[in-house]
């Protein structure tokens, strides 16, 4: 009896989202299933909505065992996971409105880790990476006059964060630090005239109530590698590890399906409201010219960190993404 009690492992699993949101629905399902299927040998406790750790502190919290698992965001941690942050690059990401596209996105990520040791090395301080959920593409939502081409943003106050902030500064806009929960207020009062938001967040945070247009150019997606503390992972028996890994596939599927449904619903809402602006070929090209600069910067940065195959990695990612759009 004592031996079995000692073997019981409790996993504290944190996310920064409330439990009913699409990226985490599959993760909550997974937590319950693992507890059931391992007959309690591995008990997974969910701590949603930053109740155990915020996204910003998550990396340190997992490394030091405050959390055993956490759903990281590659956008927030782009400086720590430079290669994984490929998903954040504007214009080089995957579509996100079908289960197939989301699955392809996830599979490409795992393939990336398998092919390029430098990518896998980003996770060397953690236990095996077996769970990954994609995140939606960001789009530009604006008020007043529509934004169609890069030149339109000049002189506008645009809510953004991370890499999109850099891009906007380059284009002569006035970038304002902004994240979806607070984007509503800023758009409403006019502190910003436009903001970047994941298509799912546009719907979740009802940004359409305070904006007039959304441009259908994808400005980069995101990814949620779900990392596990190395010590915790190594304590789990191979048989239970196998159960966890298998169930992760179904967990990811559930989240990806829910995300795809939400993203389609969001686009339908925008279209019904007459907010959607479809960029023509020429407009697309103008944006892509800007994006290319960011891609080259990314490649240079990765090369500078000693990874010679940076360009190859980028091309592998971009080609897979392009195939998914077709």
């Amino acid at each position, binding site marked *: 009896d004592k031996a079995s009690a000692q073997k019981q492992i409790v996993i504290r699993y944190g996310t920064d989202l409330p439990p009913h949101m699409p990226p985490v629905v599959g993760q909550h399902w997974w937590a319950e299933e693992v507890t059931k299927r391992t007959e309690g040998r591995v008990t997974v406790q969910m701590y949603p909505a930053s109740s155990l750790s915020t996204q910003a502190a998550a*990396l*340190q919290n997992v490394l030091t065992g405050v959390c055993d698992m956490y759903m990281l965001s590659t956008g*927030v*941690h*782009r*400086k*720590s*996971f*430079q290669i994984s942050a490929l998903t954040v690059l504007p214009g080089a990401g995957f579509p996100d409105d079908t289960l197939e596209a989301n699955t392809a996105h996830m599979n490409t990520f795992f393939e990336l880790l398998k092919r390029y040791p430098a990518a896998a090395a980003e996770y060397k301080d953690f236990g095996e990476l077996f769970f990954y959920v994609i995140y939606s593409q960001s789009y530009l939502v604006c008020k007043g006059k529509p934004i169609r081409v890069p030149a339109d943003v000049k*002189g506008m*106050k645009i809510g953004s*964060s*991370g890499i999109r*902030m850099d891009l906007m*500064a380059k284009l002569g806009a*006035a*970038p*304002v*630090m902004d994240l979806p929960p607070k984007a509503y207020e800023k758009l409403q009062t006019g502190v910003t005239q436009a903001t970047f938001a994941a298509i799912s967040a546009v719907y979740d945070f009802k940004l359409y109530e305070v904006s007039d247009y959304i441009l259908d150019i994808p400005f980069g997606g995101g990814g949620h590698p779900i990392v596990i503390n190395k010590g915790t992972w190594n304590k789990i028996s191979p048989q239970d590890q196998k159960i966890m890994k298998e169930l992760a596939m179904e967990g990811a599927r559930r989240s990806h399906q829910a995300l795809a449904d939400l993203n389609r619903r969001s686009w339908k809402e925008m279209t019904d409201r007459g907010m959607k602006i479809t960029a023509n070929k020429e407009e697309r090209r103008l944006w892509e010219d800007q994006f290319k600069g960011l891609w080259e910067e990314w490649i240079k940065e990765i090369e500078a*960190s000693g990874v010679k195959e940076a360009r190859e990695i980028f091309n592998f990612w971009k080609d897979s993404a392009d195939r998914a759009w077709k």
Partner: protein
Amino acid sequence: MKLFTKVERGLKSISTGLAMIAAIVLAAMMLLTVADVVGRYFFNHPIKGTWELVGLLLVCAGTWGLGYCQMEKAHISITILLERFSKRVKLMINIMATFLGLVGFSLISWQMFLLAKKYFLLPRGNVTDTLELPYSPFMLSLSISAGMMALMLLANLIRSLAEVRRK
């Protein structure tokens, strides 16, 4: 005891000095916010990374006054019951309180120092997102202010223990 009084006086002036710096940084946070808003609204030119910098400056503005706050006995406690106790019990509780605070802030200071060191040695991911400012100096500054607080508490503890012995 004479030496101790000297050390204590030294600690007090350092604490006051740190609080003065915190005060000046507070004014800087105010001016930075104003400059950012004015730049953004009137000239379409916000100051890059203001929110990041204001957050980091808060480490200094908000915590470098910790020791001074302790010196002025401005940390909050609830004295409803305490007032009813005898002088001796009061002193004992005071010693316990000071001791608990001393342990708490020493742990924070020590752990903050370790975290600062860890971030200093990290190959990547140790700078802020927009301005790429290194985190470690700000972590170190929090370690210093918690350490200053601990030293003030230690001095208070020694004073109280001496008082017990005198009785």
